[in-house]
């Protein structure tokens, strides 16, 4: 077999055993070619028909939404303590320091003991995230020592003005208007 190959293919050198002859496709044309073309055409028709029987796989977006994974990094959320209702954020600015896109602005202020805003000594008087700059890397979430900021699941943040994409503390603390569907186990 190997000898026949060397003779017919006429290698310019003596091929070793590890030389693999190139597998070529059948020659085009002729009766065989016509038969092959016909067969392949029918095979193609079968393939497309199978797709039709399978049915559409597209998601009708505004009505149907893709479920996200629990770890999906969407729009940020700020959190409060459930029992006291105090903000978890103490205005330490570590998130702003960690942010590679430099989109977080925190201005801290001292807590008034009579009227506490956060559980710590200080609180964030201003907490703004410029979502038109945010790259959704999640470093802020990692940097936060109090789990005050986490990445939520919302991904519908389109807006008409860039100014509207600067989210203030109130907006980040509020529940999202519409909940993004969450992927369930095993889906």
């Amino acid at each position, binding site marked *: 077999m190997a000898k026949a190959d060397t003779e017919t293919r006429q290698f310019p050198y003596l091929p070793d055993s590890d030389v693999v002859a190139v597998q070529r496709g059948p020659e085009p044309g002729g009766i065989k070619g*016509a038969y092959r073309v016909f067969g392949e*055409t029918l095979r193609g028709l079968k393939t*497309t*028909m199978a*797709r*039709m029987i*399978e049915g*559409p*796989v*597209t998601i009708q977006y505004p009505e149907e939404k893709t479920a996200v994974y629990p770890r999906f990094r969407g729009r940020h959320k700020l959190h409060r303590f459930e029992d006291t209702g105090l903000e978890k954020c103490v205005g330490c600015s570590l998130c702003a320091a960690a942010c590679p896109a430099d989109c977080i602005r925190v201005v801290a202020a001292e807590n008034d003991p009579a009227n506490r805003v956060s559980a710590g000594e200080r609180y964030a008087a201003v907490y703004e995230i410029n979502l038109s700059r945010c790259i959704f890397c999640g470093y802020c979430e990692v940097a936060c020592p109090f789990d005050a900021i986490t990445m939520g699941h919302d991904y519908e943040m389109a807006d008409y003005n860039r100014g509207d994409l600067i989210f203030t503390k109130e907006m980040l603390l509020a529940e999202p208007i519409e909940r993004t569907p969450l992927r369930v186990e095993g889906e």
Partner: protein
Amino acid sequence: MLIAEVGFAEATWILIVKALVIFAAVFAVAPVLTVVERKILGRFQARYGPNRVGPFGLLQPAADALKLIGKEQFEPRGALRLLYAAGPALVVFSGIATLAILPWGDVKNGVGFYGIDVSIGVLYFFAFGGLSFYGLLLGGWASGSKYSFLGAMRSAAQLISYEISMALALFGAILMAGTLSLTEIVHAQDDVWFVVPQFLGFLIFMVAGFAEANRAPFDLPEADAELVAGYQTEYGGMRWGSFMLAEYLEMFVISGIAATFFLGGWKGPGPGFLDPIWMLAKILGLMFLFFWVRATLPRVRYDQLMSFGWKVLLPLATLNALVTAVLVTVL
């Protein structure tokens, strides 16, 4: 000498009514076909197709037509005005004219269920079908654009390589029926549809029909990948819409001719008033084949098209016609 036999003549007003009905049917059928094609094509690609305008997207053609009519009528600077405008008109004209000979049912109470029953039947189809190509050629050439010109030249080359095979493919059926009249050909299929003895002819006719209607995989005159849009590159608005309308009409007519010649025309079980419905069902079935093939096959190369037309289809069609002729004479 008897040149043409006229079975019976209909009153002029009946002919006018028929003409109006055909004209109205064209503008009702073609838009529906566009949305049907897009939806079926979508299913083949595992998506839905248009489903936003109206219930199930059925108002999509209305929106499309409104958009096209509202568009500006522009002309390229290098265009020849008259011919540029004549191109789409000619294509639509030929499409509507060929629709006239499709028989939708038998003659009842002295009124034939077709536009006209010309004794030259299929020659009429080829004459007006060939005319549509002038629309493409003139439109493409008069646009004054190289892409249009290339598309037009391609359609010319495509026409000469397919028209002959197409005619020869029908020859077998004509020989078996012994007449050119389309109603008579349907009557000749009382016993068995011609698709059984003339299966090769049917295949050749359909393949040539794809080329004739400029449909995939033979949509070389449009060839969006290489020629932008071929002969229709410089057209916009309703002029472009006319080309699309004509394409669907042509597809409809070719399916109709194939149904008449090979699938027994209006014949089917059930009472007589179901005839047009049977015809429509057969036509739509063949149109589905058009969509199916479009969703499946990639466009063939220009030389592949030529060699396929001349080296495969033409000899096969000739052989088919010859063998049928011999068998018809002998048997």
